[in-house]
């Protein structure tokens, strides 16, 4: 069962000037988020993450394509009872106290006053704002606002939680708290879809990710699969009693050779050359100590896709000028 499905979703905004092409914020985005998983939606600023989230929540209308949440069209009013949302850099009614704030959102979600009060009390404790419960939000720090924002997203016990940059503005302790909270939501069987550009957090908690660049989904899947299929960055081989100086074969295979006494470190650009190098080590009677493949990290993948997106746009612009 998929909780979020988008098919060829596009959004463009008119330029406001005749003859000038519209600004394309999303360009045929198709992705699925499965029930009970944590899905990280990655992309640099301006890539289309927030636009996607806004379309899913019915805040913005898609120019074309289709989006379903919990099996219903995006923007369906009744379905929103089952969805929790935290916007990026949340701005709330700062004249409300934390208790009044959660009470307001609980009642908007259709909860009774008694249920709202009970859930608000639990959530205030959960996000660590017990001492600030009667304080007006205008006196909250940025991190406290982020945490009370998370509490409002969860006040009605939603099945699907959508978070836009939930770690922004938090210190390391706050970030860990939010990570733990997201993991506990998954343990409760909830689906979490969150956008971010903090790659470290994504690597730690996400089941699957999607990377969006310039409005297009350029990668989608499990992190280990995406990283494995795209890049093994290099292989490091450590050996002993191998003569590398003047060895044309080793130097032709390796990108880097470091001889330290009897021990030698050889860096290969890809796993393809490992067999040939190991054969050479054996031929010389050397001893193989270790073979360490260095897989590309999510950060490498992210920058690789970002560079491709930039070159794609540059090529397009150059082509446009030439024509």
């Amino acid at each position: 069962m998929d909780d979020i499905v988008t098919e060829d979703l596009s959004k463009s905004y008119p330029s406001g000037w005749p003859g000038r092409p519209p600004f394309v914020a999303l360009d045929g985005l198709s992705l699925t988020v499965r029930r009970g998983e944590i899905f990280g939606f990655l992309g640099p600023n301006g890539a289309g993450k927030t636009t996607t989230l806004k379309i899913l929540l019915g805040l913005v209308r898609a120019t074309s394509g289709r989006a379903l949440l919990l099996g219903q069209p995006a923007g369906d009013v009744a379905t929103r009872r089952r969805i929790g949302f935290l916007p990026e850099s949340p701005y709330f009614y700062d004249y409300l106290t934390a208790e009044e704030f959660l009470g307001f959102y609980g009642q908007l979600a259709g909860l009774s006053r008694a249920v709202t009060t009970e859930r608000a009390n639990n959530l205030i404790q959960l996000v660590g704002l017990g001492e600030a419960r009667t304080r007006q939000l205008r006196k909250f720090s940025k991190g406290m606002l982020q945490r009370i924002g998370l509490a409002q997203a969860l006040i009605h016990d939603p099945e699907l939680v959508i978070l836009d940059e939930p770690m922004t503005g938090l210190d390391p302790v706050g970030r860990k708290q939010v990570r733990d909270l997201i993991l506990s939501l998954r343990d409760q069987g909830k689906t979490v879809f969150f956008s971010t550009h903090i790659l470290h957090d994504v690597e730690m908690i996400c089941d699957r990710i999607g990377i969006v660049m310039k409005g297009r989904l350029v990668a989608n899947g499990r992190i280990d699969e995406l990283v494995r299929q795209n890049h093994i960055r290099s292989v490091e081989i450590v050996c002993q009693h191998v003569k590398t100086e003047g060895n044309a074969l080793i130097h032709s295979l390796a990108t880097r050779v470091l001889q330290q006494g009897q021990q030698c470190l050889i860096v290969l650009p890809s796993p393809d050359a490992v067999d040939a190098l190991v054969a050479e080590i054996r031929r010389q009677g050397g001893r193989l100590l270790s073979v360490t493949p260095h897989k590309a990290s999510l950060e490498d993948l992210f920058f690789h896709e970002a560079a491709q997106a930039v070159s794609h746009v540059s090529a397009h612009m150059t082509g446009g000028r030439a024509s």
Partner: protein
Amino acid sequence: MGAIGVIAVNAFRESLRDKILYNLVLFAGLLIGLSVLLADLSITEHHKVIADMGLAAINLIGVIIAMFVGISLVNKEIERRTIYTIMARPISRSFFIMGKYFGLALTLLVNMSVMLAVFLLTLWLYHIPIEQSLFQAVQLMFVEILVVTAIALFFSTFTSSTLSAIFTLGLYVIGHLTADLRAMVANSEGMIGKVVVDLLYYLCPNLEMLNIKGQAAVGVAAAPEYMLLASLYGLLYAGVLLTGACLVFQRRDF
């Protein structure tokens, strides 16, 4: 409580915690107090001057609150992005608009009640008879303020705060002038002028219909039929604008 009620109560709570409204009501109190000083300076008709100025103060402050709070009612939610979390809840956009409108209407009702109480107290202190006509004038003022709020809300659903303020103020001024303009061009020979004024007369709210302050100040009561008709007219006009605001807001991207 339904979603409209939740939004309305929150809008009311917001205004209660906004110090500007208190200042405006205080200002109204000062204006009413000033009317006593001016009445002392006038040679005759002390009663009329106090009643006139008191009603004018209530009307002025009511219209200012309706206009400027009404304009920011929706725009502030969009500019401060508080709308995102509200619209992510299971409430329709029309319910949001109606909730905000009724919240402000409740605020205005409370504000006008406070101003009326100060006004009546002033009249009582100066032994001025409290006529029924004064209550009638305040009733129609409240209807006028409901219309002005609906105008401000309507414009704020699709334009910026500045433009909304200009349009609302413009419509308010025209709304008080159309009847006079129509009378002026009735005898002229230019067809275009007549058509334009007729168009304005029927499109713009006839706010002068809701203004009986002059006769109320001298104790002349309006007929009950007139009160009913004028009130219905104002409420219907506000209802049409509110429907328009809901329709526009349905189609808006945030």
